[in-house]
C-alpha cells in the first residue's frame, strides 16, 4: 500500500472508478488533469460517457443490516428517553399545555378551595369579576388535569405502592395484587398450552386432522373471549375459575392455529430425510418435527404469553374484581392516577422482563437457530 503511494504513476485501486468524478488532487500529479485531454497511448481515445443519474443519491431504506452493539444500546435508551422527555416537558414547562389552574389561594370566591383544579377561562372570569367587585382575588398556578401526573409523582407512587402499606382500609397492596394476576396468567397459559401445543403440532403434521378441527377453531377464534365472561361465571363461580377460563379461551384457539402453521413451515426436506431414514409417525413427530420447530414454537409461545396479559385485564373484571386490575380500578376511583400509572408501568415491566428473560433463555437453548430471536 505504502509503495503504491510513493510511485505516483499507477493510481491506487478504487480511485476514479465513479463515472464523471474528477481524479483526486494527489493523483493529478502523474496523470492528465481531465479525462478528455488524455492523449497518452495506454489511456485509449474517446470521451467518457457520464451517467445522467447522480451517484451520490443515498437511500435510507434497504436490506436491514445489523447495527453496531453501541448504536443499538444508544438507540434503545433513546426510544425510552424520548417519550419520557416529552412527558416531562408537558408536566414541568408551565406554558406547555396546562389547561387548568390549580387554586392556591381562593380569595373571596366562595366555591373555590386550595388544591382545586379550575379551567383557565373560568379562573380568569372569577379574577376579573373579583377585580370589578373589589373583593380579594384568587391565586393559582397553571396545572395539568388530574389524570396526567408528573413523572416524579408516578415515580414516588411506584416506590410507595411497592413498599408502603395502603392508606385506605379496604385497599390491597400492589405486589399482592400483581402476584395474584401472575398466578392467573400462569394457570391459564399452562392449561391452554397443555392441549393447544400438542393439538397444534398434530394438526400441522396431519392434514386430515387439521381439516377436521381447524375450520371450527377458526370460527370460535372470532368470538371475543370476554363475551364468554357471564357464561363462565355461571359455570365456574365468581372467583378465579372464570378468569382462568377467559385466558384459556383467549389463548387456546389462536395457539392451535399459530402452532399448526409453524409446524407446516418446517423445512420439508428434513421430514423427507427422516422418512428415508426410517422414522415413522409418533417417533417422527418426537424426534424430527418437534425439534425442528422448537425454536419457532418457543417464539410463538412468547408472543401468545403477551396476548394472555391483554386478556387478563378483562378477565379480572369478571365476577369479583381481583388482582392488578382491581388495584387499578380502585385507585382510579380514588383519583390516585399516579398509582394507576405506577400499576400500568409495573405490568409493562413484568411483561418486558419476562420476555427478555425468555429471549435470553431461547438463545441458550437453541444455539443452532440462526433467525432473529
Amino acid at each position, binding site marked *: 500500500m505504502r509503495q503504491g503511494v510513493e510511485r505516483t504513476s499507477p493510481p491506487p485501486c478504487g480511485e476514479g472508478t465513479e463515472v464523471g468524478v474528477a481524479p483526486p488532487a494527489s493523483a493529478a500529479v502523474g496523470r492528465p488533469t481531465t479525462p478528455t485531454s488524455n492523449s497518452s497511448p495506454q489511456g485509449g481515445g474517446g470521451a467518457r*460517457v457520464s451517467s445522467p443519474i447522480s451517484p451520490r443519491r443515498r437511500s435510507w431504506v434497504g436490506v436491514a443490516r445489523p447495527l453496531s452493539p453501541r448504536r443499538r444500546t444508544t438507540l434503545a435508551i433513546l426510544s425510552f428517553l424520548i417519550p419520557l422527555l416529552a412527558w416531562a416537558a408537558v408536566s414541568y414547562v408551565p406554558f406547555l399545555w396546562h389547561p387548568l389552574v390549580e387554586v392556591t389561594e381562593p380569595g373571596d370566591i366562595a366555591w373555590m378551595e386550595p388544591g382545586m383544579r379550575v379551567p383557565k377561562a373560568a379562573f380568569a372570569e372569577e379574577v376579573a369579576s373579583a377585580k370589578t367587585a373589589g373583593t380579594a382575588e384568587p391565586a393559582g398556578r397553571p396545572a395539568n388535569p388530574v389524570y396526567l401526573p408528573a413523572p416524579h409523582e408516578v415515580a414516588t407512587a411506584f416506590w410507595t405502592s411497592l413498599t408502603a402499606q395502603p392508606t385506605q382500609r379496604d385497599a390491597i397492596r400492589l405486589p399482592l395484587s400483581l402476584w395474584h394476576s401472575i398466578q392467573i396468567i400462569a394457570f391459564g397459559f399452562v392449561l391452554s398450552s397443555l392441549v393447544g401445543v400438542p393439538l397444534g403440532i398434530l394438526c400441522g403434521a396431519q392434514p386430515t386432522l387439521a381439516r377436521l378441527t381447524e375450520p371450527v377453531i377458526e370460527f370460535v377464534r372470532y368470538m371475543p373471549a370476554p363475551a364468554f365472561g357471564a357464561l363462565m361465571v355461571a359455570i365456574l363461580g365468581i372467583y378465579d375459575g372464570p378468569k382462568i377460563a377467559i385466558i384459556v379461551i383467549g389463548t387456546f384457539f389462536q395457539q392451535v392455529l399459530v402452532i399448526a402453521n409453524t409446524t407446516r413451515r418446517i423445512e420439508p*426436506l428434513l421430514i423427507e430425510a427422516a422418512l*428415508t*431414514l*426410517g*422414522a415413522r409417525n409418533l417417533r417422527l413427530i418426537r424426534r*424430527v418435527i418437534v425439534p425442528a420447530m422448537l425454536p419457532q414454537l418457543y417464539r410463538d409461545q412468547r408472543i401468545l404469553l403477551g396476548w394472555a396479559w391483554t386478556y387478563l385485564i378483562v378477565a379480572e373484571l369478571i365476577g369479583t374484581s381481583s388482582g392488578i386490575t382491581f388495584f387499578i380500578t380502585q385507585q382510579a376511583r380514588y383519583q390516585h392516577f399516579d398509582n394507576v400509572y405506577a400499576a400500568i408501568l409495573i405490568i409493562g415491566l413484568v411483561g418486558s422482563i419476562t420476555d427478555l428473560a425468555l429471549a435470553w433463555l431461547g438463545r441458550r437453548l437453541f444455539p443452532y*437457530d440462526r433467525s432473529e430471536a
Partner: protein
Amino acid sequence: MNSVSPVVSPVVLPIEACDYRTQCEPVRARFDKLKGREVALRVEKLTKTFRKPDGGTTVALKDIDLVTHRREFLCVVGPSGCGKSTFVRILAGLETSTSGVVSVEGVPVSGPGADRGMVFQGYTLFPWLSVLRNVAFGLEENGTPRREAEREARQWLALIGLEAFADSYPHQLSGGMKQRVAIARALATRPRILLMDEPFSALDTQSRARMQAYLIEIWKKIDITIVFITHDLDEAVHLADRILVLSAHPGEVAELIEVPVPRPRSHNQALTPEFRATRTRLDALIHPPKDEAEESVAPDVVTRMTSAGDEVE
C-alpha cells in the same frame, strides 16, 4: 421454427474424436462383469402425471424402463423440467407413481424404506443433533439401541474422515463436510441403493471435485448401487458407469449411455477422446442445436452507448 426438424440431428464429431459407443477392452470387460451381477433396481413403465390447477394434466415421466445391476454407478441427466428429481423421489418412495413398478432386488417399492438411502440437494442434517447423532439417527429409528448405534456411527465417520467432528453441530461444518455427513447418514442403515439428488450442486468447484473423489472412494469400498442425479454433464461422465439421459415434456428415456472412459477416473481424463465424445453426445441430446440458435445474442440487439475509439474488445 417449424422448418427445423425436431429429430435430433447427427452429431458432428471432432476429427480426432472416436465414437462414444466404441469401448476399449478393459471397459468392455468391466461392463460385461457389471451386467453379470444380479439386478439391484428395476423400473418398469414408470409414468407420473400431475394434475394442473386448471384441471388439465402434465406428464412428468412417461414409460421409463431401467435396469441397474448391483454396484453400478448410474447418473441421470436431462434438460431442466425433465423430471429427474421426480424420478429419484419416486425411487425413494417420497412420491407415488401414476403407473409402473419400481422394485429393489425384486421387492416392489411402496413408500420410503431403509433399503434406499437418499442424499438431497439442500442440507438436510438435523441441526439440533451432533454430527455423530445425525449419523446414528437412521440406526436408532430402525431399532438399534443408542449406544450401539453411536458406536457404529463412529465407524462411518471414520470412513468419511470426519471422526474429529463427531461432537460438532451441522452449522459448524462447511458445505462439503455437511454433504459428506449426509452420505454417511444415508449409508449407515445399510441401504442397497443410494439415491443422490444433485448432492454437490450447492458446492463450489473445488469442493465438488473433492466430493466426487470421496464418493468414488466410498463406492469402491461399499457394496452399494448409486443413482446420481446431476445437471453437470462433466460430473456425469466423470462419475458414471452408465448415464440415463431423459428428454423433457414428457420425461422419457432419450438414451442410456455406457460411458467408455476407463476406470480409475481422474479429472485429467476430461481431454481424452472417449470423454469428449461422450460429452459431445450428451450436449447434443440435452441441448438440441435449434435451442442454441434461439438463445444466442445478436450483436445489434444492444444499442451502442459509448464513444467511438473507446472499444474494450
